[in-house]
Structure formats: structure tokens, C-alpha cells
């Protein structure tokens, strides 16, 4: 198999050595200019768009919950509820909580108060995602999205026998993704390492418990009871919808930073980083997915992971229009622009998960 003999990619690479510091900053200014142009153009069209998506999501949710109560329409209802949860978490929740629509002044679109239909408390996610992951993207030891504290996703993570279970852990994380995301702020790897104790995370755990309990009561107790004799259908429908959302979100998100060709960085490499170098790291550490308009919406536009990491608080519907400009700039400065269809990208992620279960630095 060609995959097995693929040359190892350098685990971390300093920015393109052919570029002078001045060129890197000029590169940063070109990206800043893209952002400024989009910001100046934001208006009713962006708000109308996200409100249309919200309207569709709420409609699908209500229709889905109604239809899955009855056996003949169970499948349709479950599919609608799964779509609703995917939209709620990705195109709506993720993007609103980034502050992408804060310029509107609409409290329903406020990133600091929005709560989403998943087990993870929004406040915790805003910290682990917006602050930690987006600021320290792909820096080993700082970006906790590299393996979520349970997986070996970079050859620079030292191998331990525990990682023999890498594919199993990844599979469990995929099917239970909403709970994995919910537990992110508990920092289990630091507890296991003895750096902190479970007692230090008491408040975090209480918040997770409150949110998860409410979500569980809603999907697995209240709605089934409402359906009376059809309670088992509702229970199964909600379970399936949550599972579909978990698998889909996991697949899209793991294709954002772990496909073949994406790079990790060390704390030393990124010390005293300039704005241009920060942009550099975001591009080298992210990968896009190709697809149609519907695919981009259903992936919360995380299919434009590169553009999202450059400009996390620009409304995500704008990523498609700026992607060609970003790509052109990358080509001019000799940067890789990692992009491919979901099956191909996901296959390289799976291969990485399996290979890194074993000792050694090759991927």
C-alpha cells in the first residue's frame, strides 16, 4: 500500500524559510485587508441569512419531534431532528458563540449569552474553544483540541502503552462526542498526571452536570413521556438523532486539523509570534473540505476551516467568498493550502489515529 510507505511529514515546521520577516508581515497585512473589506460590507444580508437558518432549524426541530412519535414517519422525523441538532450546534451555535453576529446588537445572536442544544455548557466551550483552541491552535501542550486529552494525534506526543487503544478511544469519542466536548474543560489528562485534583474541577463538573441533566431529561424522559404509548419510538429517535449529530460533528471537526499535511507547533517555535506568523500557523494547522453549498451549511462552514481560523469572528457565510483570495495569497507566498473532499480527508485522519497507536514518529 502506498499509504504505508508515505514519507513522514515533519511534525512541526517553521514558517516557509524562503520568506523574510518583512514578507511574513506583508502577508499578514494582505489578510487583514480581506477582513477589513468583509467587515465594511456586513449588513442586513448576513443577518437575514442566519435568521433563515435559525428559522429552518427550529422548524425542522418541531416537525422532527412530532413526526418521530409515529412509526410510519419515525425515520423522517429522526432525520429532521438530526439535521436540526447539526444546524443548531454548527452553523448556528458554533458561529454565533464566536461572536460572528455581535455587531448586529441582536440579543438572540449574542455570542456571550447563546446556549446550544448539546451537553456542553456554552460558557465552558467559549473558553476552551474561543480562547484556548483559537489562540493557541495546534501548539502542542497548549491547544487541548489535539487529541482532547485522550488521543495521540501528533507524533510529537510521546507514546505510552495507553495509546494502543487510540482507535478505540477515537471511536468512543465519535459516538459520544457531545459528552466528550462537555468534559473538555475538566482537563482529565492533567488530573491523571496529578497536576490538579478532581476537587479543583468541582465547579466545572457541577455546571456540566446541570446542563447534561437538563438535556438528558428533555431528550430521554420528557419527550418520550409526552408520546405516551409511543415513548420507545421517541426515545430511540432522540438517541439516533443525537448519535448522527455526534458522528457528523466529530468527522467534520477532526478533518479540520488532523488530515495528512496539517502541522503542529511547539511552544518554543511560537514564542514572540507576530501577527503575520500567527496567521501562518493558522493556515499550516488547518485543512478545508470541498463540497457544495448545502455541505458547507451542514458543516457549519467548518469546511472552510482555514478561513475560519484566520477570521474566527467573521460571519461564516462569508468564508466561501474570501476562500479564493486566501488561496491565491497562500500560493503567492508558497504556503500549502490543504483542501480535499470529506472521505479522502477523513481517511487520512483515521490512518493517523491508527498509526499513532503504535510507538514511533511516523504517521
Amino acid at each position, binding site marked *: 500500500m502506498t499509504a504505508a510507505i508515505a514519507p513522514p511529514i515533519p511534525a512541526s515546521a517553521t514558517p516557509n524559510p524562503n520568506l523574510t520577516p518583512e514578507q511574513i508581515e506583508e502577508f499578514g497585512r494582505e489578510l*487583514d485587508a480581506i*477582513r*477589513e473589506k468583509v*467587515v*465594511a460590507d*456586513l*449588513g*442586513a*444580508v*448576513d*443577518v*437575514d441569512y442566519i435568521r433563515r437558518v*435559525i*428559522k429552518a432549524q*427550529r*422548524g425542522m426541530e*418541531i416537525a422532527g419531534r412530532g413526526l418521530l412519535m409515529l412509526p410510519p414517519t419515525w425515520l423522517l422525523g429522526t432525520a429532521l431532528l438530526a439535521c436540526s441538532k447539526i444546524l443548531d450546534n454548527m452553523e448556528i451555535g458554533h458561529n454565533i458563540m*464566536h*461572536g460572528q453576529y*455581535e*455587531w*448586529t*446588537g*441582536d440579543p*438572540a445572536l449574542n*455570542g*456571550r449569552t447563546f*446556549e*446550544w*442544544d448539546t451537553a456542553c455548557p*456554552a460558557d465552558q466551550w*467559549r*473558553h476552551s474553544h*474561543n*480562547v484556548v483552541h*483559537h*489562540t493557541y491552535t495546534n501548539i502542542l501542550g497548549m491547544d487541548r483540541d489535539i487529541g482532547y486529552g485522550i488521543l495521540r494525534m501528533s507524533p510529537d506526543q510521546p507514546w505510552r502503552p495507553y495509546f494502543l487503544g487510540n482507535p478505540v478511544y477515537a471511536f468512543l469519542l465519535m459516538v459520544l462526542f457531545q459528552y466528550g466536548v462537555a468534559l473538555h474543560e475538566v482537563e482529565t489528562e492533567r488530573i491523571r498526571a496529578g497536576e490538579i485534583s478532581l476537587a479543583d474541577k468541582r465547579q466545572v463538573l457541577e455546571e456540566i452536570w446541570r*446542563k447534561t441533566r*437538563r*438535556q438528558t*431529561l*428533555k431528550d430521554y424522559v*420528557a*419527550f418520550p413521556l*409526552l408520546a405516551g404509548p409511543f415513548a420507545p419510538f421517541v426515545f430511540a429517535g432522540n438517541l439516533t438523532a443525537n448519535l448522527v449529530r455526534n458522528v457528523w460533528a466529530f468527522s467534520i471537526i477532526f478533518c479540520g486539523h488532523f488530515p495528512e499535511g496539517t502541522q503542529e507547533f511547539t511552544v518554543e517555535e511560537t514564542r514572540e509570534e507576530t*501577527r503575520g506568523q*500567527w496567521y501562518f500557523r493558522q493556515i499550516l494547522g488547518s485543512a478545508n473540505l470541498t463540497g457544495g453549498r448545502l455541505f458547507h451549511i451542514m458543516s457549519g462552514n467548518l469546511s472552510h476551516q482555514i478561513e475560519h481560523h484566520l477570521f*474566527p*469572528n467573521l460571519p461564516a457565510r462569508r468564508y466561501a467568498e474570501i476562500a479564493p483570495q486566501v488561496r491565491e495569497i497562500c500560493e503567492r507566498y508558497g504556503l500549502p493550502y490543504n483542501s480535499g473532499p470529506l472521505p479522502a480527508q477523513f481517511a487520512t485522519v483515521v490512518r493517523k489515529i491508527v498509526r499513532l497507536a503504535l510507538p514511533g514518529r511516523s504517521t
Partner: protein
Amino acid sequence: MFTQTLVRRAVRSPLAELLLGPHGPDRYTEIVNPMWTTETRATVVRVRHSAPRSVTLWLQPNRPVTWRAGQHLAVTVEVDGRRYTRCYSPANAEGSALIELTITRHDGGTVSGFLFRNGRPGLVVGLSGPAGDFVLPDRRPNRMLFIAGGSGITPVLAMLRTLQSGGFGGTAALLYYTRTPEDACYRDELVGLGIPVHHIHTRDIHTRDRVAGDLTGRFGERHLAAVMADPDAVFVCGPTALVDAVRRCRPDAVAETFAPPVFAVPETPGGGRIVFRDSGIGIEGDGRSLLEQAESAGLAPQSGCRMGICHTCTRRKLRGAVRNLTTSTVSTADDEDVQICVSVAVGDVDIAL
């Protein structure tokens, strides 16, 4: 009404909160009808262009809104995707079911211009308030003089209409200043009040108004003496210059000032005074980010990325202008949220911090 109450109860029940969580019932009901929400909103039901630069809107709120004559309500509209809130005083008597607002368009006014052009039946606006202490005392003075300048007529008219509907037995008079005769709103309504109304236009002092007597020019001692000598109480609402002039003659006047905020944004940041209002700390702006300046002043506001991407440090700017260094946009309106890690003060700024 009964079914409405029943539906409202059901939608607000803990079970509904759980089933429609985490977004809450409002976020579903408002999609069906923007008025079905626990937030106070109102629909425009009638429109009249009352003067060349003014429009009068009658609003039907989604729940009873009570205000005292002279107070103002905060009206929120959305213009090109952005929400703006401005204060307007209802012009009708206390206790009215509809809310009557007269908006005078001023040059470059985002909200007044929008309402002037787009104020038509069906438009939904947000409402909050009421607020303001420009109100009639519960024990009505016997002789009251009202002075209004420009669109300051609306709270004054609300007071006069409230007095009229309450069967006020004393005497009242109105001095009403506008730039030109055409700028006057409510000419017919004022005549119908049955009190002496002196309408004075300040721009063309030679034109006499048919309603008014023979007064000309700007407010002064002479106007006061001619209209009502030694009133028990004076109420004035209008631009700062008018209120100041009245206060010089009658320091006890109950006053409400309004002026559209006009400020030229300086080119270079810094130089102004930054006030962190919650902490009661005032410092000189030195061109660094508001976050850095707050930290130098001994405060420890929440922050995250410190580069404008995570929105952890977002704070409410109460007053003044700030420039966002990453987007080069300048925020000048009162009560706007700003990212303090990438914002620098441009002139005087008050921050809720």
C-alpha cells in the same frame, strides 16, 4: 383574552422551558409572530407625516406599557442588520392604549431617518423603559408655563393632554419655538387644547404666526413676562441653549434637554479621559488598548486571546468613541459593546468596567 392568558401560562411553564430549552419559548414563538415574546415590542399601526421633517407613529405594544407624561421610552430598530436604540417621548396622554411618537429627522440621523422613511404600518420595534423625571408633580401647581423647543414639543404635549383629560382647573400656557413655521408639529392639536399657545419661529423673526401673538426671536425675560407673569411652575424641554436660557430666568424650571450627539472623531487616539464607571476610576487615554489601560490602572477585567478573536473581554461602552484596531471601525454610539483588547479610546470614553 382568557385563551391568550392560558397560552401564555402554558408557554411559560417549567415544562415548556425544559422542552424548548436551551433557547427558551420566546425563540420559537417570535419566529411565528415577532410580537409573541416576553420582550416588549410594538407594531406601528398608523402613520402621519406631520411636518416636512417629522413623522408621527402610533404603536400598539404587545403588553400594556405605562408611562408618565413627559417620560421617554427607548425604541429599538434594525437598520441594515444593526440594532439601534433611541429615546422618544410619547406625545399622548398618560394611560393611552397606543403610544404616539413624533420623530423629527435630523441630518445623518440613522434612526430618525429610518423611521421617517420606513415607518409604516406593520413595522415592529423593540421598546423599553419608561425613564426620565421630566414629569408633572402629583399635586398640580395652579399656574403652569410650558416651554418647548423643536421636537421637545412631544413630552410637553403629553403633559398638556394629560392635564386636559384629567380636568385640570388651573391655568396653563405654552411657548413653542421652532425654526420655521413649517417645522411645527401638532398645530391643530395645540389649538384644540384651549390654552394660550405662543408659537415662535427663531429663524425668520419677521414672520408672525397665526396662532401666536407678537413675540419674536429667542427666549428671554420678555417672552416670559408677556406669556405668563410669575407662574407657579415652569416646564421646559428642548435643545440645551433653550433650557439654559430658561434656567437663567427660572432656576427652578423642570427641564429635559436633548441634543443629537454630534462629535467629530479625532484622527489620533488617546488624549481623552477614560472612565471605568463601575470601579470609579478615571485615567488619561494614552493610545494603548482599553484592556491594557484598565490593567495598568489596577483592574483585572476578564480577557482571553488579547488579539480580538475570542470576545471574552467584550464590555459595554457607555459613552464616547473607540477605534477597533483590527477592523479599523469606529464606534461612536452610546451603549455599544466593544472588544476592549483591540479598542483604543478616541477622546473621552466611559466603559462599564
